[in-house]
């Protein structure tokens, strides 16, 4: 049974310096408020995992929380580069950032293997590209029946998964709908998990397209209305596109970013 608690308590309890932490949400239901709480609590040396590091990871990286990033596409979607990510990866500011990069198919399968309790996943992927030469966590594997050579990637089993969802009930059962991305996989793959939700309700009325994650498979649930802004929560609010665009200017400059961090997060 998930414990229903505050965001601050949940992050304090689950996220420790040096942990491997995955904040997921494929364009939808991104747990931005939880990311800010990690910054406020001053976590360091995190290995951050995410298929699509975008604004919230740029913020975590710029705030110096991360020593490593595991990802498949790092950018400000529809706008351009992640300047804090580039500054850390290219110039080591504020701290050096190691990277481990995959494709979406590889990352999705790594979570799926983690959720399934397997040490690796098999896919048709990466073939002919320069990624296997740069990423140690890509290896060939031979089909024992046909002899065909495919690609293996190791499971991802983060210490903590953090995702956002629309609703939970008082037992911590979580309901989400719309684009569900890798929400289920990352929660099931991780040793512990935190789900922030728009609201906690007495009963989860069934809804077309909705999936439910049972409360007993989740560690903590925290009610955080608006917790996915500036991304969106279908049925609650739309994506704040102006914010994505405005992030470009804030993040381009170390001083502007530092000011933003001091005034908006800490």
């Amino acid at each position, binding site marked *: 049974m998930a414990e229903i608690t505050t965001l601050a308590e949940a992050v304090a309890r689950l996220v420790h310096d040096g942990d491997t932490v995955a904040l997921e949400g494929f364009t939808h239901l991104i747990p931005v408020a939880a990311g800010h709480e990690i910054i406020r609590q001053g976590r360091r040396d995190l290995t951050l995992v995410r298929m699509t590091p975008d604004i919230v990871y740029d913020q975590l990286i710029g705030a110096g929380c991360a020593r490593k990033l595991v990802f498949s596409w790092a950018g400000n979607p529809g706008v351009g580069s992640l300047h804090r990510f580039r500054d850390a990866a290219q110039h080591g500011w504020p701290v050096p950032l190691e990277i481990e990069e995959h*494709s979406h*198919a590889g990352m999705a399968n790594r979570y799926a293997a983690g959720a399934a309790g397997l040490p690796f996943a098999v896919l048709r*992927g990466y*073939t002919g590209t320069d990624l296997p030469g740069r990423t140690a966590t890509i290896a060939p594997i031979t089909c024992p029946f046909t002899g065909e050579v495919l690609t293996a990637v190791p499971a991802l089993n983060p210490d903590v998964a953090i995702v956002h969802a629309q609703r939970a009930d008082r037992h911590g059962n979580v309901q989400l709908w719309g684009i569900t991305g890798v929400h289920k996989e990352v929660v099931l793959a991780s040793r512990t998990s935190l789900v922030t939700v728009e609201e906690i309700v007495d009963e989860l009325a069934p809804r077309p397209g909705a999936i439910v994650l049972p409360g007993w498979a989740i560690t903590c649930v925290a009610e955080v209305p608006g917790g996915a802004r500036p991304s*969106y929560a279908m049925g609650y609010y739309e994506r704040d596109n102006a914010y994505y665009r405005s992030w470009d200017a804030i993040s381009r400059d170390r001083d502007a970013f530092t000011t933003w961090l001091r005034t908006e997060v800490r």
Partner: protein
Amino acid sequence: MSSHSPGEMMTVAASRALSDGDRCFVGIGKPSTAANLARRTHAPGLVLVYESGTIGAKPDRLPLSIGDGVLAETADAVVSVPEIFNYWLQPGRIDVGFLGAAQLDRFANINTTVIGDDYANPAVRLPGAGGAPEIAASCREVIVIVPHSRRTFVPRVDFVTSFGFGAGAGDRERHGLRGRGPQLVVTDLGMLAPDPETCELTLTHLHPGVTLDEVHAATGWDLRVAPGLRTTEAPTDTELSVLRALEGQEG
């Protein structure tokens, strides 16, 4: 006939490459615009598949991201991200994959990872692979949409993020790749296609008003011209008005 911009020509030319009934794996930006334009003009039965897991999306406006809510709301089915890659893209169910590129080389290999020779200390760190390597591998064919410039059209990409034809003919087969790879490159100046023998990209079309010299000047290798070079048909009034209505809605 109203005048059109090079960008509009690029989008219209790409949209025409899609056939009614095709299943199309769509990225955001120009590919999404081109696919939505095709669905509103000559290909009403085009099936739009986005990597966010939306299958058969019928957006009434241009989506703002590959995970825009309008895609989920209008899709025939919404599936998880592992499922869209494993059950739908990987087995070869998709006819056309649309890709962009930061660098594209003469054998249609694509780089969206790093500019520069040193992966650890790149001149420019790009977003990375996303869904592209497996789109390039698994779709029946790939269309690349990319503005024409020497910075982009390089003899050899600094990093192969997505495999085109490797070092030339036979390389896809040697790697066991099932899709036919990039069969069309649409730029703001013209269109390129792989030579049937060598797989080297050759110029097949010039857009109206564009000269061969302009294309050579914007290409970082000695671009060969396909036999029977043609001029792309200019956008029709219908194409332009539908495209402008679409783009006016955006943002």
